[in-house]
């Protein structure tokens, strides 16, 4: 997600938003760094966060499908970010209670960042939804198009179930309930329609992604792969 948002750098609609989006991007890259760093340690094969970020192929990535969707127009980016922020907010809130100290500390810190992201995108959703006819149409279209990627946010596989049993990870069903209420409430305030479709894309837990991830990774990993072990 951080990679996607950084594509807005220099292209934001107004100066202040350019900086706001890239700040959010930096926060997310920071969170990814911390998470991948810990993942590398748990894996025990000596991988650093850079190895995991820049040298894994698409099928080994487990990011949610929502995060790899393209930026589209501003309404699309904001809608995507909003849906993601609500998710992260309740996710980290729950993960704070993890028995694993690293995850719990990481969640506490990230929750502060995400609280701000959510405030920012919520305010934008209200202004776009309850704004001009054009903004309303664009953000409604965005929500409708993104909706089929939201089910994937809450899928759990056997690994997730095991981690939940051990008290390390969280119950995504609980997060889903809170997410649905929060999103429904805000969409209503923004005079937007909650999509009613039931078909959901899935597969991120198994490393199955949409066509966008390949291109995103090609750009992100280009430098490391072309000049392995290069240092700044």
């Amino acid at each position, binding site marked *: 997600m951080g990679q996607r948002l950084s594509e807005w750098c220099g292209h934001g609609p*107004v*100066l*202040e938003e350019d*900086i706001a989006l890239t700040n959010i991007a930096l926060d997310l890259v920071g969170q990814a760094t911390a998470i991948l760093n810990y993942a590398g340690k748990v894996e025990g094969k000596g991988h650093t966060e850079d190895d995991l970020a820049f040298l894994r192929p698409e099928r080994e990535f487990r990011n949610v499908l929502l995060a790899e969707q393209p930026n589209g127009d501003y309404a699309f980016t904001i809608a995507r970010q909003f849906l993601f922020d609500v998710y992260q907010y309740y996710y980290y809130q729950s993960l704070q209670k993890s028995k694993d100290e690293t995850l719990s500390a990481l969640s506490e810190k990230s929750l502060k960042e995400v609280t*701000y992201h959510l*405030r920012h995108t919520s*305010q934008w959703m209200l202004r776009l939804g309850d704004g001009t006819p054009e903004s309303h149409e664009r953000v409604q279209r965005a929500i409708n198009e993104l909706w089929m990627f939201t089910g994937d946010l809450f899928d759990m596989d056997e690994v997730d179930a095991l981690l939940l049993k051990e008290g390390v990870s969280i119950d995504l069903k609980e997060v889903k309930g809170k997410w649905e209420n929060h999103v429904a409430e805000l969409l209503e305030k923004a005079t937007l329609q909650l999509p009613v479709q039931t078909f959901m894309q899935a597969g991120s837990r198994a490393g199955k992604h949409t066509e966008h991830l390949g291109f995103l990774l090609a750009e992100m990993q280009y430098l490391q792969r072309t000049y392995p072990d290069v240092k700044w």
Partner: protein
Amino acid sequence: MEKDTQGTLWEVFVQANPGIPHKHVGSLHASDEEMALQNARDVYTRRKEGISIWVVEAKNIKASSPEDIGSFFEPANDKVYRHPTFYKVPDGVKHL
């Protein structure tokens, strides 16, 4: 006077630590006060500049003009009796 099409102009003041005055750090454009506050946080507090932000619409600030310097400020130059310079601080008094 050309029309500014970027939206409303706001002046931003940041307070570095509790108890000391907010300092003017710059300005930005935003459509309303909540966005002005968030934009100020994003643009002016990236490097731990402070813990509190005030945003004020630029039009609400009444400023003196350079022509006023003569009548507003120069008369105070030769009124030395307004300064507390004739009081000698006794030894041992630390925080006056």
